[in-house]
């Protein structure tokens, strides 16, 4: 009898689980509503008379795994935008229909395996009207195929790699400055700081994003007459940078450019510091602009990083007028204030990336006066605006459709203020700089 009991338990367990209630997609938890925050859309005078439509925005977030830090900020930014629009009465179309938004999202665990499965689910089962990309170029490349296969417009944010926009997609639009322009400014900065330095080492993460960054930067540096003494990738899951540090020492490099994402970047910076590598100029991707990078303490001092946006950035309706562009959305301070009120933390460029994705979508819906994917696509193709995040314009050529061509990078550096606290300063381009660059890196 006992021998029979166990299989029975096993089988009945299986049956129970298999026949349990089908889980429904849980709408993402709404963050604390932002009271009285400046909403981008002022509801029109008079009460809208038409019906209310709820547009579903689908995306996956890396709630766990290596992209957790950046992805969470990105989603926070997006949700802030959505709450502001919904609280402001939604978007009212000319026929009186009001569009409100609802988010459906799943955890992709920073893992590509699940991304395609989940985006298919978003496109088919959850009937998402619009898709927002996951964080990182690798996950986005996987999601983009699905979006295009099912004819959904997808705005990508936190996904800079150029390659994704060269696959012949027509519905994918990039909010970030593409990877090929991430580190070219750092090379200019280095030339500005010290014309004597000639030897650069590139040590980068073997991912779509970092590879496209360093390949473009390498070509640019060579063109400027630099000698590339080391050009080597590391696996995404690397925790031991010892071999690379030894190679850097051996190569006699004076400057290091590279990195990849947050986790590997901060580990790399920490091990460079621990090993007391004497290097004059150290630029890493993604990690330095994140406020959490300050947790490294002394290891963070002097590290430079390219950023899509900084809270100090001065984009205003006036500057839009000067540049002959249309201004759209709230001011930078208003965004920072609302973000801090909602999440009690400083926004990083990933935060505003998510917010900007929302703004772009909103503007496209308003311009298209519809939520039909084809009309939205057309509006996006024509878009040329300035927001608190910066200039937005998409490439419309067949070869690189959807590539961001308006937006530019700034470069930040961690420095110590007079009280000995770590602070992030903009050091390049000079017209936006908030401090002199600390050089050489201590």
């Amino acid at each position, binding site marked *: 009898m006992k021998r029979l009991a166990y299989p029975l338990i096993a089988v009945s367990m299986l049956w129970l689980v298999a026949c349990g209630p089908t889980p429904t997609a849980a709408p993402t938890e709404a963050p604390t509503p932002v009271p009285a925050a400046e909403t981008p859309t002022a509801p029109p005078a008079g009460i809208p008379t038409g019906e209310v439509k709820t547009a579903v925005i689908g995306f996956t977030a890396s709630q766990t795994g290596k992209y957790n830090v950046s992805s969470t900020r990105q989603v926070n930014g997006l949700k802030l935008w959505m709450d502001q629009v919904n609280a402001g009465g939604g978007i009212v179309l000319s026929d009186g229909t009001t569009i409100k938004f609802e988010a459906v999202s799943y955890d992709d665990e920073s893992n590509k395996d699940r991304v395609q499965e989940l985006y298919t689910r978003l496109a088919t089962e959850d009937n998402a009207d619009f898709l927002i990309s996951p964080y990182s170029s690798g996950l986005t490349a996987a999601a983009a195929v699905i979006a295009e296969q099912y004819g959904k417009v997808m705005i990508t944010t936190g996904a800079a790699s150029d390659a994704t926009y060269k696959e012949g997609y027509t519905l994918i639009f990039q909010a970030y400055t593409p990877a090929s322009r991430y580190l070219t400014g750092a090379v200019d900065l280095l030339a500005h700081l010290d014309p004597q330095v000639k030897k650069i080492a590139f040590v980068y993460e073997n991912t779509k994003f970092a590879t496209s960054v360093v390949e473009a930067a390498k070509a640019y540096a060579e063109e400027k007459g630099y000698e590339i003494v080391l050009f080597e990738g590391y696996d995404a899951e690397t925790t031991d940078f010892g*071999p690379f540090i030894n190679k850097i020492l051996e190569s006699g490099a004076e400057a290091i450019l590279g990195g990849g994402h947050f986790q590997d970047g901060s580990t790399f910076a920490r091990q460079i510091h621990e090993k007391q590598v004497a290097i004059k100029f150290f630029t890493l991707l993604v990690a330095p602009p994140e406020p959490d990078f300050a947790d490294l303490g002394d290891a963070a001092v002097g590290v430079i990083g390219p950023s899509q946006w900084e809270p100090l950035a001065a984009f205003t309706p006036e500057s839009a007028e000067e540049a002959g562009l249309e201004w759209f959305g709230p001011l930078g301070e208003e965004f920072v204030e609302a973000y801090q009120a909602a999440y009690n933390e400083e926004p990083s460029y990933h935060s505003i990336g998510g917010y900007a994705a929302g703004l772009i979508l909103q503007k496209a819906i308003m311009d298209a006066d519809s939520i039909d994917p084809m009309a939205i696509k057309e509006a996006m193709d024509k878009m040329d605006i300035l927001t608190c995040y910066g200039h937005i314009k998409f490439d419309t050529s067949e070869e690189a459709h959807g590539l961001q061509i308006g937006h530019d990078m700034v470069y930040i550096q961690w420095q110590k203020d007079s009280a000995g606290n770590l602070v992030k300063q903009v050091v390049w381009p000079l017209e936006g700089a908030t401090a002199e660059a600390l050089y050489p890196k201590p």
Partner: protein
Amino acid sequence: MLIASLTDGLLLGFVYGIAAMGLSLIWGVMDVINLSHGPIIALGMFGIYLAFTGLGWNPYLSLLLVAAVGLLLGIMIYGAAVHRVINAPHLSTLLATFAVNMIIIGIGTAVFSTSPRNVDFSLGSFSLGSITLLWTRVAAALAAVLVTALLYLFLYRTRLGKSIRAVANNRAAAELMGIPASWVLAFSFGLGTMLAAISGGLIATFFPFTILAGGSYELKSFVICVLGGLGNPLGALIGGLILGGLEGIIPTFMETTWVPVLEFILFVIILLVKPSGLLGGET
């Protein structure tokens, strides 16, 4: 550069050696390949992490606690998953320990998520000529040597240790001599997981990790086991040093990403040519 890389690699090799020793011991004593080895290494990392970040304990003191918990956990795993199939074909023990692997990873992911953790602990560094070494790495290597010495004392000088060797040699004969084989097997399994947990704890003092991090150290342990010969603790330590040395030397003349390719090719070749291990005796 060669000297610097080699030193780094060898210091790491001691820790790899401890991890492999755990796998090797279990394999040698009861002919079981423990596929839950990796997650247990990860649990060792989290043990140190929790003790350090939660309670503020010194990592090297917490290592004693991690070792004790590792021993108990191993005995429990043996009782729950391995004992019933110990005499069944290899597939059964492989899958049973893999099931334990899935359970630990599953629960671990639910509790800790897969986000990377860091034990923010430093002993500083010192310079020897042109090379800079971290004290945490040196301490880990010393701890590894100490653990190996203790294990040898235990296996060769204590009654229980001698019983383990007897059971490993011939289980049936040992039972006839009045040695409680089941108990000895359970204890050996505990000892093996204890070593895995200790190695995880040591790694946590200098590398970041996630709940999934044990996997790559488990694979390295396999390679080391066939290098050093199965069931031979000292062989495992030497195998660890060989692997660490290779990881130090290979990057000096080719791209670092080729290291795993060479490691696994070497692994397969040794399996084919001399399955008892480079340092192992005849089987």
